[in-house]
């Protein structure tokens, strides 16, 4: 059977839409309310509470922990100081991405890896000969994202702790409602936000306390649909939606390198020593990457004109879509968009697209396939830099938001 997360009793009580979906064998809310709008706007306007417990979580400890992660990750984990986290990719021997996630350095010899897919077997295969223990704490640890402009205010009150110094991708230990939590300034929304990692048995107390403290700030439980909209605006790719893990690919063409995923910045080739996929990645730097994931902005007047031809106003979906929409350059198919949304904030139709590298430079004019009254049409679109939405508060050390002055 499917499992509920440690927050399930609270989530179930609030999920009046009964719109559920699966995530890693858990049942999670797609949306709580019947209309998804407020959950999305909470992320950008106040703060949203998102249950992200189904993430796979591994504790990697011991004298060999750093070496293991250096060996596996594209990023140079040695440069990660305790109390810092880093987004990274890991590859197979062919330099193709297996998964992406966040490595947090909890101590000199203690790391936590969060991942979309199970990775215990892969980590253990690579840990042979190293003095390291790997524990799958996916079920033992609950995870909760508090995301949005008021997230800091709410968390500071809930944890009775100043977070003004906590930098982007920084971690700090704290306690909420008597439960020890690790507060990590990370998230999947591209906004100011935090993720909390806590023992599963403290989950309900933490949820209740956050909801009580966050109430006056419109802290709103948000489901996966709202999160999906926010992550597309943030230009963050999603495994098995925007790319296929090399582990699941059925043919070589389905695999992608970190460079093709726009994650070349996580690949550190300057460091000494080997890591999984290094040779292939070096070769790719030399030879170039055939594909690139890029942002696409669909030209609104062009879309409007296509609908006007059949006497309709432009119809855009109000939630994010996933699929494969062909993208053309001068009549030739040069790629495909894998997820997109009409951004209620930006008032733009945006998408993440995998494009032939020659057509992926910002400013490139392309055409994007849309279905208008059952007919396939092409709307003008332009390659743009991501994130589509990137507010300064995401990274800022200090900020002043109305109503957030310390009590």
């Amino acid at each position, binding site marked *: *059977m*499917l*499992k509920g997360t440690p927050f399930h009793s609270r989530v179930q009580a609030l999920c009046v839409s009964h719109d559920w979906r*699966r995530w*890693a*064998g858990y049942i999670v809310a797609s949306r709580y309310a019947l209309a998804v709008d407020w959950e999305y706007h909470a992320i950008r306007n106040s703060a949203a509470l998102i249950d992200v417990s189904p993430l796979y979580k591994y504790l990697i400890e011991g004298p060999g922990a750093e070496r293991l992660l250096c060996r596996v990750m594209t990023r140079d984990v040695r440069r990660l100081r305790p109390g810092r986290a880093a987004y990274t990719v890991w590859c197979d021997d062919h330099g193709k991405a297996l998964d992406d996630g966040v490595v947090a350095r909890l101590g000199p010899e203690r790391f936590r890896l969060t991942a979309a897919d*199970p*990775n*215990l*077997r892969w980590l*253990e295969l690579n840990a042979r000969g190293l003095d390291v223990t790997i524990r*799958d704490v996916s079920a033992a640890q609950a995870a909760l994202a508090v995301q949005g402009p008021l997230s800091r205010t709410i968390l500071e009150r809930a944890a009775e702790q100043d977070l003004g110094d906590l930098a982007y991708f920084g971690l700090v230990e704290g306690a909420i409602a008597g439960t020890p939590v690790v507060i990590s300034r990370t998230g999947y929304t591209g906004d100011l936000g935090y993720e909390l990692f806590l023992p599963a048995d403290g989950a309900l107390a933490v949820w209740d306390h956050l909801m009580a403290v966050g109430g006056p700030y419109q802290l709103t439980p948000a489901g996966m649909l709202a999160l999906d909209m926010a992550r597309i605006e943030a230009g963050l790719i999603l495994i098995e939606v925007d790319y296929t893990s090399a*582990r*699941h690919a*059925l043919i*070589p063409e389905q695999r992608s390198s970190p460079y093709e995923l726009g994650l070349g910045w996580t690949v550190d080739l300057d460091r000494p020593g080997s890591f999984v996929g290094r040779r292939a990645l070096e070769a790719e730097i030399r030879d170039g990457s055939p594909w690139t994931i890029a942002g696409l902005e669909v030209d609104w007047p062009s879309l409007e004109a296509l609908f006007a031809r059949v006497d309709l106003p432009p119809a855009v979906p109000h939630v994010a879509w996933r699929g494969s929409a062909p993208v053309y350059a001068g009549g030739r198919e040069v790629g495909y968009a894998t997820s997109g949304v009409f951004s209620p904030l930006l008032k733009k139709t945006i998408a993440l697209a995998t494009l032939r590298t020659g057509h992926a430079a910002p400013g490139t004019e392309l055409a994007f396939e849309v279905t208008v009254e059952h007919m396939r049409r092409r709307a003008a679109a332009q390659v743009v830099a991501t994130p589509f939405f990137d507010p300064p508060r995401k990274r800022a050390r200090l900020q002043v938001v109305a109503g957030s002055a310390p009590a």
Partner: protein
Amino acid sequence: MSGPYDAIIIGGGHNGLVTAAYLARAGRRVLVLEKRPVLGGAAVTEEVFPGFRYSVFSYVVSLLRPEIVRELELAGHGLHILPLESTFTPLENGDHLVRWGDHDQTMWALRRHSLRDAEAYDEYGRMMSLMARAVKPILNTPPPDIAGFDPSHWRDLLSLGRHFLGLERDQLYAFVKLMTMSAADFLDEWFETEGLKATMSASGIIGTRLGPRSPGTAYVLLHHYMGEIDGVFRAWGFAKGGTGAISEAIAGAARAAGAEIRTEAGVTAVLVNGGTAVGVALESGEEIRATLVVSSLDPRRTFVDLVPATALPADFLADIHAFRFDGSSAKVNLALDGLPDFTALPGPGPHLRGAISISPSIDYLERAYDDAKYGRHSRRPYMDIIIPSLLDPAMAPPGKHVMSIFVQYAPYDLREGAWDDKREALGDAVVNTLAEFAPNIKDRILHRQVLTPLDIERMTGLSEGNIFQGELTLHQLFFLRPAARWSRYRTPIRGYWQCGSGTHPGGGVMGAPGRLAALEILGHGLSPA
């Protein structure tokens, strides 16, 4: 329609019927001769006890070639395959393991035993499917004679070679391991949970006189991964109405195309005149002439029983005599007045609607095999059980059930005693072993049919009761099935052809030998009318 016939098919099993259907659809005049009153050979449904209908022998379907279903329009002839979604393994410590139709449900079930195995399971499945996809074209290709000079053979060989070269390096290495390792060793490289390894290894030993630790059994794992229903690899199903419904659908297709089918018409000899087959003689004494004679019987029946030894080259006949059958499996069919209640997962539930595998550990299976090695039936046998009445309610009266138990090992050639005296002892071993896991079973049994390998041989004609018409071991596959130089459905006798599971690509309710034989006949022996 009556003679003269273009082709006589000996045996109305599924392969004989497939060959008949293809030849008839090509406009040839075809006669099928079946010894028994029912069609299907080992793929039959019979009402063994009043109100209780059984897939008497073969009981599940996966390998039936999709092109046969499509080309013979079997759905239109009544074939309806129901899904067999799960595999339930009760364990000896009172725990259980279930692999479900749903990925997440299986993941949680496996994670309870081992996080590593839950992960490895996905990767293993993907690797096996990729390999099966690369190897699968073999199922649709007549085996080339690698030592011959016929250019068409080389064309086939090249096209197969291309598929193998399409495998990635890692998969190619894994394939070599599969060809050489035992199922247990191969699975040891992937998994740590005993019940999981044992249940998976079982598909490497079904129908063979080999144990999970015998080299070569890993390949048979792959053979079973080639199963395909609706384009989904490795899906198992149950034919509504029992396995006989498959034979009936194929027979329907053959009849619709004009084939004539006669039951209770056992063939006693193939008439050979000047090195050429000219017809057959029946038990009744009747003789029927035809341009071609095609045997769907196993190689021993086809070449030893039906034609005079003098009609065949000595070295070929020596190969046929050396062809191993080693029947090792038995079948127990029960009529039940209620469902079994398994201690490991009590009560009725969806786990009873799938396969139930009595394979708690590799050691358990290997011990079952040890008995057979020394000429005894397993005291605690491996069993693959289904309850067809939970899938198709028409198989039993309302509230009652039929249970199909595939039993291994039961060696054809007992070291001591005779099967006619040991039949009920085997039945008792089966019921007693099952009762260890489902104690209420003894009180539920209304009727019991025990089919020893000898019974299977007597009823279906399968030599030594081998369900595949000869062991599916590497030295009896592909261009060596049934004998070197004679793997392309021809025989040393002109006008005499073979189309049974004893030819490439082998047994299981697959139909591929029957179809390939028909295509070969139409290409070389009889052109379409």
